[in-house]
């Protein structure tokens, strides 16, 4: 009712002016009024949703832009844009074929029905069915017309006896008909042309669409990979959070029985080596990834070993030919002090919380309490002349006795030191473990157990509480008495330098680094790691051996590397080893088969991995990161090292790398 009332109202107001010029406004008003009878149901018509849809859409579409069409070249539309819609319509509607069928029928000869179709189908062995509707768009009128003509034709000729004449001779078309046919044929040809170009356009369109869809598909696959990575990361996090939960629960339970004795090395929490998520200062997230944000100068010779307790915690570095590792505070980037005590270059370092273990070329392993390094630094500064330091070390070298004796080097500094009586507690060095006859080149400790590997080709297991060597495992013995060869496994004869290993000194030239330098690699045991009583060692004969620490026997040897193994790590599923043969191999822990081999351009000297990536030092200035889910390599170069990277270690997103330029750089992963 509303339109009518409204219209009425407007007409009332405009009636005086109605007689005057009928402006558009009035016309529209009247038009609205004129429409109302229709609307109000002259012929009960429902306003369907479709109508509303198009009415609403109309407004929206009016605002849409119309691009300029390219100039169409005439009517054939071949050179210019695609044929117009109407042209296409005329070409493709079923009645377009009318002319053709009509012409064909005019050429049909009225011969007595021979049943050719049945004959042919029978000849092909098909069942003959009743003829169904043939073709589309045969309009009735045409059929009738031709038929009549045909009949008429026949009628004219009458009962003339038909000899064996050719079919075509009978028909007479007449000029008009023929001209009509020619023009029809021409039009049909044009139609064909139009349809061809339509199809070409369609094909081009579809090709574009396929390309676009392909691009979308690759993007989606990349997204899938990323999600997979995130999934693995979350799995790791979950595991670590669970461990931490247990840890904290056990701590609250065990507060009563905690051992707080100062003499014993601080009670170590369960290994946090495979740790994450680490607790980082909030600013760490703002650091740009892939760029070294801190650099520490550690002396003048290449870094030989490094390890840190936790991100932004304490770092211990050791350089070649330097017997005194440096201790750094990662929060400030300052050197806290040095660990004095060794007489030979330190070759292996491991730090857990405030405990540090170092293995050196003098064949000993020292246990240090890093909390005491501050104190020592202070006291050293108080008027100690450097000369006396040198004398100090010389005295130590001679005075190093047998047995487990707490290092008294600090205590023996002379007059200044009053605490000479407190031998055992003074200084950061808590304990010295002796037993190896040659340089200790690899070690790993967890809780109260330590395993070391040395150039005397043995592995020793130590108890850190008592400082005693619990077991010695002889690699040479394992070499000459290999465990039963698994079926299909490589024979020991494949070891590239088995003979050399059995001989005396072990020295192999390393393949040149990226800067061309090389040196003699003399560490027979490149790396060790254990978990529970399962021990894995990588040695100079290129073999990765798995030992049982209860029996001291190697029960499995993983062969594959053709150069000494320099670094090694394992988790529940994989063992990853890197070697001087420029490759990193990923082994299956349970079966011993190789999962993957990652090749590099230079020898691999250090690696660490988790479920998503392997970070390695591969003889170049950049730290190599290999993404395990996407199988992509990347390099950390920005503000990076100027000489090949030697050692590295990371926790969660905090990476520490040391190179031959004696620099240690910290990266945010």
């Amino acid at each position, binding site marked *: 009712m509303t339109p009518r009332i409204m219209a009425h109202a407007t007409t009332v107001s405009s009636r005086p002016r109605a007689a005057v010029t009928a402006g558009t406004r009035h*016309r529209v008003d009247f*038009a*609205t009024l004129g429409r109302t009878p229709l609307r109000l149901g002259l012929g009960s018509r429902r306003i369907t949703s479709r109508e509303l849809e198009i009415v609403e859409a*109309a407004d929206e579409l009016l605002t849409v832009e119309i691009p300029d069409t390219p100039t169409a070249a005439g009517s054939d539309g071949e050179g210019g844009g695609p044929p117009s819609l109407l042209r296409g319509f005329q070409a493709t*509607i079923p009645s377009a074929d009318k002319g053709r069928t009509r012409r064909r029928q005019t050429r049909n000869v009225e011969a007595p029905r021979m049943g050719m179709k049945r004959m042919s189908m029978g000849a092909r062995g098909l069942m003959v069915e009743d003829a169904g509707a043939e073709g589309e768009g045969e309009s009735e009128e045409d059929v009738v017309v031709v038929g009549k003509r045909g009949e008429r034709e026949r009628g004219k000729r009458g009962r003339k006896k038909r000899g064996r004449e050719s079919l075509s001779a009978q028909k007479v078309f007449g000029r008009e008909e023929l001209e009509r046919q020619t023009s029809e044929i021409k039009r049909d040809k044009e139609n064909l042309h139009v349809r061809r170009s339509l199809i070409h356009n369609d094909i081009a369109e579809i090709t574009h669409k396929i390309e676009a869809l392909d691009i979308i598909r690759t993007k989606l696959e990349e997204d899938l990979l990323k999600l997979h990575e995130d999934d693995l990361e979350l799995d790791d996090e979950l595991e670590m959070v669970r461990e931490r939960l247990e840890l904290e629960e056990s701590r609250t339970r065990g507060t009563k029985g905690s051992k707080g004795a100062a003499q014993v090395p601080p009670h170590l929490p369960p290994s946090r080596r495979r740790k994450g998520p680490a607790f980082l200062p909030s600013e760490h997230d703002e650091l740009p990834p892939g760029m070294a944000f801190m650099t520490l100068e550690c002396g003048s010779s290449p870094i030989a070993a490094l390890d840190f307790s936790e991100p932004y915690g304490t770092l211990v570095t050791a350089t070649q030919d330097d017997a005194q590792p440096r201790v750094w505070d990662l929060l400030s980037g300052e050197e806290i002090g040095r660990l004095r005590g060794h007489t030979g270059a330190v070759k292996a370092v491991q730090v857990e919380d405030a405990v540090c273990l170092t293995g050196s070329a003098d064949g000993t392993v020292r246990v240090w309490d890093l909390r005491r390094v501050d104190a020592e630094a202070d006291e050293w500064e108080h008027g100690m002349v450097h000369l006396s330091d040198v004398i100090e070390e010389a005295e130590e070298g001679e005075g190093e006795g047998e047995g487990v004796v707490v290092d008294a080097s600090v205590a023996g500094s002379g007059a200044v030191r009053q605490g000479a009586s407190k031998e055992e507690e003074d200084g950061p060095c808590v304990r010295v473990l002796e037993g190896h006859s040659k340089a200790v080149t690899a070690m790993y400790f967890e809780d109260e157990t330590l395993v070391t590997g040395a150039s005397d080709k043995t592995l020793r297991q130590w108890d850190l509480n008592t400082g005693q060597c619990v077991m010695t495992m002889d690699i040479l013995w394992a070499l000459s008495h290999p465990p039963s060869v698994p079926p299909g496994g490589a024979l020991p004869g494949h070891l590239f330098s088995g003979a050399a290993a059995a001989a005396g000194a072990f020295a192999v030239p390393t393949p040149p680094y990226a800067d061309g330098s090389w040196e003699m690699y003399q560490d027979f045991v490149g790396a060790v790691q254990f978990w529970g009583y399962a021990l894995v060692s990588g040695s100079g004969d290129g073999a990765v051996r798995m030992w049982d620490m209860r029996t001291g026997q190697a029960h499995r040897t993983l062969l594959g590397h053709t150069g000494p193994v320099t670094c090694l790590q394992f988790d529940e599923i994989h063992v990853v080893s890197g070697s001087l043969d420029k490759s990193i191999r990923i082994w299956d822990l349970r079966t011993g088969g190789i999962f993957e081999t990652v090749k590099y351009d230079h020898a691999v000297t250090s690696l660490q991995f988790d479920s998503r990536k392997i970070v390695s030092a591969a003889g170049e200035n950049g730290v190599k990161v290999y993404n395990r889910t996407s199988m992509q390599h990347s390099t950390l170069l920005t503000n990076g090292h100027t000489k090949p990277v030697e050692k590295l270690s990371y926790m969660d997103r905090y990476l520490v790398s040391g190179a031959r330029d004696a620099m240690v750089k910290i990266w945010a992963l």
Partner: protein
Amino acid sequence: MAVDVPYAADAEVSLSFDELQVLRTQYEREVAQSHVTTQTKFNFAWGLVKSPVREHQVEGVRILQDIYRSEPARRRECLYYIALGYYKMGNYEDAKNFNGLLLDKEPANLQAQSLGTLIEQGVSREGYIGMALAGGAAAIGTLLVATLVRRAARK
């Protein structure tokens, strides 16, 4: 620059039912394959617009709007066809808008111009009807008022 479109008279001639059916099956077959070519859409829409049944016309205009939305290259032609569809349906305002757009782009288009005049005629026809209605309503109104006044005067 000129688009090749038929005169409005062509829209009054409708296709036979069979032909429309064929176009419909073609369209639906392609929809089932989920790739409808513009030509099929247009064929079907044009066939619908030509029919005298209003529902068909509405459906035809809807499909034409689809083409308009999805194919920028075809928009100019579609302007004409949509205007024609609206004209047949009786939505003179929308028809005028679309036709106006087309004339903006191509002032020399004969068919568009002729469609424009047709729309104007339709609008004025409605206007006359409206005026007649209004006049009639006014007459009845005056009569009523007069009767009331007379009755009141008598009393």
